[in-house]
């Protein structure tokens, strides 16, 4: 059996023993809630396990803190999207309530698109959504936003460049 996988486990184990209490403490001070802190600490270590680290971490605490931060930001984003989604659904005339599972997949997908559009100015974001998702013509979009079709086209191109950068760094 793979010996490196054993090494990885040993590494995770030693990181866990040395820093688990500390991480819980940091998170509890931040979140003000022991349960959430314990939960988030668990998820952080689960991520660490999945990362399948092969070599000793040089700065384990910085690494753990960064994973925890990402998880925290992701949760906040997801929670807000979930609320927005529920609101939108409620406003639909003939809303079909999706299953819990379908809902989770939808929120996950929307969260990723939301990340893609992050930091894009509001107008560009609306143009991107109307063009790429609603499928409106430049003339229709321009009419709603008070812009010429040409300006809409240019703005969409800039939004696409932004998205490219978000995916390809």
């Amino acid at each position, binding site marked *: *059996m793979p010996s490196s*996988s054993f090494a990885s486990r040993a590494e995770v184990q030693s990181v866990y023993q040395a820093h688990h209490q500390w991480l819980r403490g940091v998170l509890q001070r931040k979140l003000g809630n022991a349960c959430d802190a314990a939960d988030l600490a668990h998820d952080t270590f689960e991520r660490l396990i999945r990362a399948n680290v092969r070599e000793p971490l040089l700065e384990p605490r910085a690494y753990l803190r960064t994973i925890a931060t990402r998880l925290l930001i992701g949760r*906040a984003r997801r929670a807000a999207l979930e609320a927005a989604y529920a609101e939108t659904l409620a406003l639909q005339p003939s809303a079909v309530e*999706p299953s819990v599972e379908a809902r989770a997949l939808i929120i996950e997908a929307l969260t990723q698109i939301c990340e893609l559009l992050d930091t894009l100015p509001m107008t560009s974001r609306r143009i991107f959504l109307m063009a790429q998702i609603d499928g409106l013509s430049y003339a229709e979009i321009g009419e709603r936003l008070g812009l010429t079709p040409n300006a809409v086209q240019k703005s969409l*191109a800039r939004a696409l460049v932004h998205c490219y950068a978000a*995916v*390809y760094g």
Partner: protein
Amino acid sequence: MDHLPLLRPHAPEAGAIDPKVIRQAADWWARLREDASAAERDRFEHWRRADPAHELAWQRFSALTRDVAAGVAQAGPSVASRTLLQAPLIRSRRTAIRAMVAAVGVGLGAWAVGERDAVRRLSADLRTGTGERRSLTLPDGTRVELNAGSALDLRYTAERRELVLLQGEIGIVTARDTLGRPFTLRTRGGVLTPVGTHFLVRDLEAGRMRVAVLEGAVDVRGLAPDDAPRRVQAGEQAEFSANGAFQSGPLAPGASAWLQGMLIADEMPLSDFLDELGRYRPGLLNCTAEAAGLRVVGAFPLSDTDRVLAMLQEILPVRVRRYTRYWVTVGLA
């Protein structure tokens, strides 16, 4: 929760593209969306063919817009775009959290070296998580089964069909291609060419690979250009690695059991058994040194690893200790 591979880079191995080319491609994309006059299309085709980077940039934009469309399909476009318009609210809250965490100080120091590899696996075309198995049929009719914790890239072109195993284990039943394109599977340890076959390949890590042939035959070639192929016949398995090592033998019983959702152990040391079982459950699963050498015999269902752990307590003198949800150690009773 794990991320769906929704917005992943297209052909990341091709590297970065000049930002000027990206802007041009985006301009073309926005322009062709509405103006499809023949003259405009000709100019575009001319631009696209002028440089491979142009083609690549165009492909990446195609993939990106396709991924976005796929991402909103389930929610429905109008619900999706309305929901996403609420996003500024999320941003402000997010910023607040960011500020909060920044107060603790987030160190983005030097991380472990495994990271780059992990990113590559996360962006694979096909991927399974811990405990997840997946089967699918490719456009040419080839069937692929991914075992837990596996990652695979697909590179089908007009000339060839190539799969790249990045991690884990796959089973392949090749189909005859109507276009007559050759089929290869690229791995860390060598390149495999099947001859009308059903075979399994597993990345054992540390550069070692194992191929098990159930039907037909597979030719294994090392990564060096002058390496001669070695044939593995049905009923045989072989371990090989990039440094040219090659050792074949009879097919191990139970090698293909995972295809049926089973783990078969025949006098398997407990430590190896738990390593295997660990592929199908999240978290840490290990045993004490005293228990490591115990031998496991039996057939176990992969779908319920908790049950397997309970079974272990019945068939071996061991006790399963759970420290946390993700932390299980098997020791002597």
